[in-house]
Structures are given as structure tokens and as C-alpha cells.
């Protein structure tokens, strides 16, 4: 199931330089510098409140850094319009937050923002990719948690992102659904060379899925490297 764990050899597609964010007097992310390589799965691990999700939200500029910056595709990401950046740096959250209506409507949402209509065949292909063949016309309210998360993945993929940010994508699922979504994400990364940054509090999951991990504590980067080196065997 796991993605081949190897030393990154691809180009750096995302780089954070002294990235930080403070809310009032509280620093939630402090001075984080790391590189994300093309086609790798980078895990961000750490205890609750360590700033994992806060760091992830800075990567697609859902929140504004108060210090440092992020380089995407070699440029300071503030040079991109927020919509263009978010199209290229997709995100899947812990709760899928599907929009009311059917599955096809959710998948069409992202491209529709740019005036692009996703063809039925493309929707069918995406749904097949996430293991939901024939679900296009299903109402999202009638889907299980695992199915909803798969739709959320397909919806993000419909935008053809270059990087996918995953914020605890399996933590709200039962064990069976969790295993299925894990396998799906791993196969996506392997088959399409999609670059992923995944937040998880589950160290075993990080060992199973990630090429490298960044360990955070109190908003600071403590260690950064191969899972076995950072998390132990």
C-alpha cells in the first residue's frame, strides 16, 4: 500500500522560508523552512495544537503569513492571484463539506469557477478513479462518510492541482473507510506523480504513507526527514 519511501530526487515545487503566523500575541506557526519535492508525499505530524493545520492553511493562502513566505513554482506565491494559487494547490479537509446537490455538481464546482464545464465522461473517469463508479447522480446527503471523502478527493482532482494538501483526510472515518481512503491516496500519488502534503496526528499512518515527515511541536519544526528517522521504526 505504501508509497515508495525514497530520498526526494524531483524538483522543489513548494518551499517555505521562515514561514510564520501569529494571531494576536500567539504564534501558531514559527519560522518554518522546508522543501516539498515533485511527486512526494510529505507528512506533517505532531501533537494536537502543534500548528499542523495552521501550517497547511498557509500553503494555499487560506490564512496570511505574518512572517516569511512560500515559493511555489519558483515564485513568491503572493505573485499569483489567490484563485489561481488555490486552483493549482488543491485541498482536502478532515470534513468533506460537500455542497448540497449531487456528486456531479460537486465535481463540476471548481472548474465552473473558471467557466469550464467538466464533461460527463470526465466525471465518470474521476469517479472511477476514486472508486465511486456510477455515483454521478447520487445526492451527497445519502453518502457514507468514506464515500463523501472520496467525492471530496475527486472534487479537488477535477481542478487538476499540481499539489494536493490533505488535512487529516481519514481522521473522521471508521477503520474500514480509513483504509480505503489511505489506499486511494497512495495509489493517486504513485500513479499520477501528484505532490501531496498531508497533516496527520497518526504516526503509524505517516509511516505507512509518507516519503518524508516534518515533526512539529508548539508551531516549530523539530525534525524533518524519512519517517523511520523522525518517528522511529
Amino acid at each position, binding site marked *: 500500500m505504501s508509497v515508495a519511501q525514497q530520498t526526494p530526487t524531483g524538483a522543489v515545487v513548494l518551499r517555505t522560508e521562515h514561514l510564520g503566523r501569529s*494571531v494576536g500575541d500567539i504564534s501558531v506557526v514559527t519560522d518554518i523552512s522546508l522543501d516539498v519535492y515533485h511527486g512526494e508525499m510529505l507528512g506533517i505530524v505532531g501533537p494536537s495544537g502543534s500548528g499542523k493545520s495552521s501550517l497547511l492553511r498557509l500553503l*494555499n*493562502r*487560506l*490564512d*496570511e503569513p505574518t512572517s516569511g513566505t512560500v515559493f511555489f513554482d519558483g515564485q513568491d506565491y*503572493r505573485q499569483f492571484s*489567490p*484563485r*489561481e494559487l*488555490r*486552483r493549482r494547490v*488543491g*485541498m482536502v*479537509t478532515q*470534513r468533506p*463539506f460537500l*455542497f448540497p446537490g449531487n456528486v456531479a455538481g460537486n465535481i463540476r*464546482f*471548481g472548474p465552473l*469557477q*473558471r467557466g469550464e464545464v467538466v464533461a460527463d465522461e470526465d466525471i465518470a473517469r474521476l469517479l472511477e478513479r476514486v472508486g465511486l463508479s456510477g455515483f454521478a447522480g447520487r445526492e451527497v446527503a445519502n453518502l457514507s462518510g468514506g464515500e463523501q471523502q472520496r467525492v471530496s478527493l475527486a*472534487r*479537488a482532482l477535477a*481542478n487538476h492541482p499540481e499539489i494536493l494538501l490533505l488535512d487529516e483526510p481519514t481522521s473522521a472515518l471508521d477503520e474500514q473507510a480509513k483504509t480505503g481512503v489511505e489506499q486511494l491516496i497512495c495509489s493517486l500519488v504513485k500513479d499520477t506523480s501528484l505532490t501531496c502534503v498531508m497533516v496527520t496526528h497518526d504516526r503509524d499512518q505517516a509511516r505507512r504513507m509518507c516519503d518524508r515527515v516534518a515533526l512539529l511541536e508548539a508551531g516549530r519544526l523539530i525534525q524533518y526527514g524519512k519517517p523511520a528517522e523522525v518517528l522511529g521504526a
Partner: protein
Amino acid sequence: MLKSLFHTQLTLGLAQAGTASVLALAVVLLARRRNIHLESDAAIALLRGIVQIVAVGSILALLLKSPRWTSVFLLTGMILAAGSISAKRAKNIPGARKVSTYSIAAGAGLVTAVMTWAGVIDTAITSLIPVGSMIIANAMNTNGLALNRFRSEVLAHAGEIETALALGAAPEHTVASYAESSIHASLIPAIDNLRSLGIVWIPGLMTGMLLSGADPLYAAIYQFVVIAMILASSGLTSLLSTLMIRNHAFSAAEQLVLKSSG
């Protein structure tokens, strides 16, 4: 009986106030026999009430002798106060005061100006100020309801809004349905007032016109005119305030800034 004893309006009014107060105090004393002690609160409220209302009456008496153009300043003052009061319903939304003041000024101001120009509202202070204040007060309430509802909807759906932003949606698109429901909810009182007019309630203006001897049919029609003007100004105010406030819920970098923790 009082009319035969008191021959000027002022003395008659004071006698009527005294009679009403005696009646209210009698009820307080009745309550006291049931061990419900309202004497102190009721006495203070009665005294305070008469002082306040006589003070307002005195100011009005002074204003009514002022030239007609002073109405503009009075109505502007009312709009500024309404904007400030109404903005409190939009806690945590930056720029709410400005949005409220502009919306009320545009909604209530435009309707009052057009209706005055058309001759529906008389330019005399005795007509323009009471009708104008009714329009402004209702626009203020509608604006407060719209902003409060919008704030609640955005706070309750922050996850959906940020999901849409993360998929590349424009900020105004992510909150469009919440803005629509805010406009709809804010106009419910004004629409219900029109629906129930004459059936559930006879508004104060019509009552006042009847008491001052106006033709009942004309008083009824004019009351409808006022309530329709209130609906028009409230609708315009609500539409403008939700249109403007939705941009204030986001930063220049299209990040949702209106959050429960913020």
C-alpha cells in the same frame, strides 16, 4: 368628565396623565396585596416616563417652529445614529458602521427624498420628521437583522465557505446564498406588517390621524402608503448592506476574516 374641568390642552393633558398614573399605581397596590412588590420600580418608571416624554415634546415644540430646511439636518442626524446602532449587530465585521450608515442613508434617504419630491410626504416638519423617522427606524431594524443573519450564516458555514475558496471560487460567490437568505429574513417583519395591516394591528400613524379628526378612509390609505414606503426603504437598505458587507467578510487576499475566534 376631565374635558369639562380642564379647558386648555396642557392642563387637560396633565390631568389625563395623573389619572392614568393613579390607575397604574392602583394596580401596583393590588399586586402588593399578593406580595408582589413593584411600588418602587413602578413609581420611578412613571416619573421618568413623564419627564422624558415632556422633554421630547418640548424639543418637538421648538423644532416645529424651525424653518423647513432644518428637517434635512434632523433626518441626517437620525441616519448617523441609526447606522451606529445597527452596526452593533455585525460584531467582528470590519467596516460594519460605514456599511450600515451608507445603506440606511441610501435606502431611507432615497425613498424619503423621492416621496417628498412626488408630494406623498409633505415638506412641513410636522409631516416630514415623523414619517422620515419611521422610515429610518425601520431601515435601521432591517439593516440590523440582515447583518446579524449574515454574520450568523457565515460563522455557521465557515467550513463550506473556505472549501469553496480552496477550490478557486470568488469570495462573493461563496457567500451568495447566505446573503440572499439574510435579505429574505430581514424583510419578514416589513412584509408581515403589510400583510397584517388593518387585520392584526392599526398602526400609530393612522390612530393619530383618526384622533386628530382626519377622514378615516384617507387615514387608512395614507397608513398603507407609509408601510409600503417602509418596505421599499427596508428592501433597498437590506440589499445594499448585504452587498457591501459580504466584501468586508474577506481580506484583500480572499481569505475569510469573519470567524468565531476572530
